């Protein structure tokens, strides 16, 4: 399990997979490919189908239709205990009647590994999660974070080519969660195993993943690296789910290849245009805009939107402002240290270039899902 003995990760190919529970459709024609050794996060709100997808891969449920291949072989109908996949659960699922050491040895015993080889592997796995001193303890004597580290060791001790994690840090407090995220990332780097990680926490997804699949309504909306999803969201849902953003809506016209949207009486230019029939909306990231006092620092070609400062929060690396526009929209702007500062009630102008915003098709369902 050291760097020279990397177990090759398995690839996953899901094609046109659907899962229905009676009338409820949990997954709708899902397509998802995961590369060997990749850290893939399935991200989405609850009920979006991410956990169902994980359960399909693990073999806890079966697809209603479609295909599922792991390492290039179909695993349809193959029960979970024959899939050789490590799974880490949110609720730890350590066996309360076995010591930490016996918990970790359990999958090895099932595979007929015994004696010194088993001892060695157990110790190695516990070392990896820094729990070697706890081998003789029982799960109820451990904290939540310690239990989850043991669960991780147990899921990895048999060198599975694939590790699934279902919101493994969901029950832990923030500090511990952040520390364990780094630990998981380190272990992934050391092992080369394919990791599939389910979470509803987009920050966690950004910290951990090579790529992120954003789920919504039983389908994947977009797959990409964190940067791709943040900078170039394919849908309004993805844009709003990943990171902070302000959505600007108004009457739109196409002028010379660019889109001009009229917001609270001000014409805002966004580069390019969207295809399709839907109305375009503008997605503005908080750090892509700067705040100016009215009429100052005017540069030709920049958009300016006037509003009243509703909230001003000092966040160390700068300040975060909520600006209320004339049409009632609240825009979020982060300004770095050294930028002009504003107090609540001040009038400010939000300034950004046409190329710094994203144009997306309007989608009312994104609002419903996210609130």
């Amino acid at each position, binding site marked *: 399990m050291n760097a020279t003995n990397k*177990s*090759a990760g*398995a690839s996953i190919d899901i094609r046109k997979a659907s899962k229905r529970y009676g009338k409820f459709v949990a997954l709708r024609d899902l397509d998802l490919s995961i590369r060997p050794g990749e850290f893939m996060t399935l991200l989405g709100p609850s009920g979006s189908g991410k956990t169902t997808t994980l359960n399909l891969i693990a073999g806890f449920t*079966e697809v209603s239709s479609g295909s599922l291949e*792991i*390492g290039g*072989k*179909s*695993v*349809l*109908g*193959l*029960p979970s205990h*024959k*899939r*050789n996949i490590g799974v880490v659960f949110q609720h730890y699922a350590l066996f309360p009647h076995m010591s930490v050491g016996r918990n970790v040895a359990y999958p090895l015993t099932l595979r007929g590994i015994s004696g010194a080889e088993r001892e060695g592997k157990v110790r190695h796995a516990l070392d990896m999660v820094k729990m070697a001193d706890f081998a003789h303890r029982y799960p109820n004597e451990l904290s939540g974070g310690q239990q989850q580290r043991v669960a991780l060791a147990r899921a990895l001790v*048999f*060198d*599975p*080519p694939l590790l699934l994690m279902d919101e493994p840090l969901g029950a832990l407090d923030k500090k511990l969660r952040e520390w364990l995220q780094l630990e998981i990332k380190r272990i992934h780097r050391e092992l080369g195993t394919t990791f599939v990680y389910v979470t509803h926490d987009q920050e966690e997804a950004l910290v951990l993943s090579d790529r992120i699949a954003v789920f919504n309504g039983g389908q994947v909306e977009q797959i990409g690296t964190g940067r791709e999803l943040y900078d170039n969201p394919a849908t309004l849902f993805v844009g709003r789910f990943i990171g902070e953003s302000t959505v600007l809506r108004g009457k739109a016209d196409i002028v010379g290849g660019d889109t001009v949207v009229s917001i609270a009486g001000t014409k805002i230019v966004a580069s390019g245009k969207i295809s399709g029939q839907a109305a375009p909306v503008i997605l503005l990231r908080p750090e892509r805009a700067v705040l100016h006092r009215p009429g100052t620092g005017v540069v030709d070609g920049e958009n300016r939107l006037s509003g009243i400062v509703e909230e001003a929060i000092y966040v160390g690396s700068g300040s975060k402002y909520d600006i209320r526009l004339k049409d009632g929209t609240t825009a979020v702007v982060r300004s770095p240290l050294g930028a002009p500062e504003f107090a609540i009630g001040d009038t400010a102008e939000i300034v950004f270039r046409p190329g710094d915003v994203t144009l997306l098709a309007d989608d009312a369902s994104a609002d419903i899902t996210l609130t």
Partner: protein
Amino acid sequence: MSALPQTDNQTAGERAAARRLNLRDAGWLAAPAVLLLAAVLVYPLAIIVLRSFTEPEPGLQNYIWFFGSSVNMAVLQRTFVLSGWVTLASLICAYPYAYAMTVVGKNLRLILILCVLVPFWLSGVVRTLAWVILLQDSGVINSFLRGLGLSPVKLIRTQLGVVIGMTQVLLPFMILPIYSVMKGIDTRLLQAARSLGAKPWRAFLQIYVPLSLPGIYAGAIIVFILSLGFYITPALLGGPRSTMLSSLVQNQVLSLLNWGRGGAMGVVLLVATFILLAIAAPLMRQKHTQTRREK
């Protein structure tokens, strides 16, 4: 260790079908127990019902005989009356006892629970023998009364003796359900009632007792139903004037070999039991959810 385990010759579809069959319904696991029940409970009861209508010849004569005989009616009435007294006596003993179990400290509670469970450790027949020893004319209770200078009381072979013995045997079945409900009652409700101006006894009667009703219903129905079918205790402690229905059934079948009449009595007992259960079951359930909500 890198490759996934090789799949065997079955196709994926076949494996899926086989698995679905296994998982279809866990209820099948109960099948062996249900089969045994059918053979040693349902079938025998069906035979008894059948014989009550067919022996010695088809018709209702056994029921006409049973309901037409004043002796039988007296026994039937006595069975219900005695069961009622046993239920009442058990309730009176059990309620304060169960309440005490909820308010005392941990060690004392252990002792009180032990007192409820220890009687079970004594063989049932031996326990009845002990009541013979206690109740007989020269028994413990009468020696005690004589020691106090009081005149002895006839207890053995009387209805009072039967009620005392049955109450002792059935008391745990009353105490335990009441205790388990009382344990869940939030006593802060009593404090709340007191703070609103209710006197202690009033608060107890208006708040606590209604909340403990599900336990009372459960205990009372169990004790009453078990009383109706009691056999050994009345047979050993009772006399001719305290015969209960079970003894008549036994007498008809074993001594008189009259399966039809014995069967008809048995059916009456069985039907009475199930009617009581049918009435009581929803009563207990409904009250139960109510307490939950009020908690």
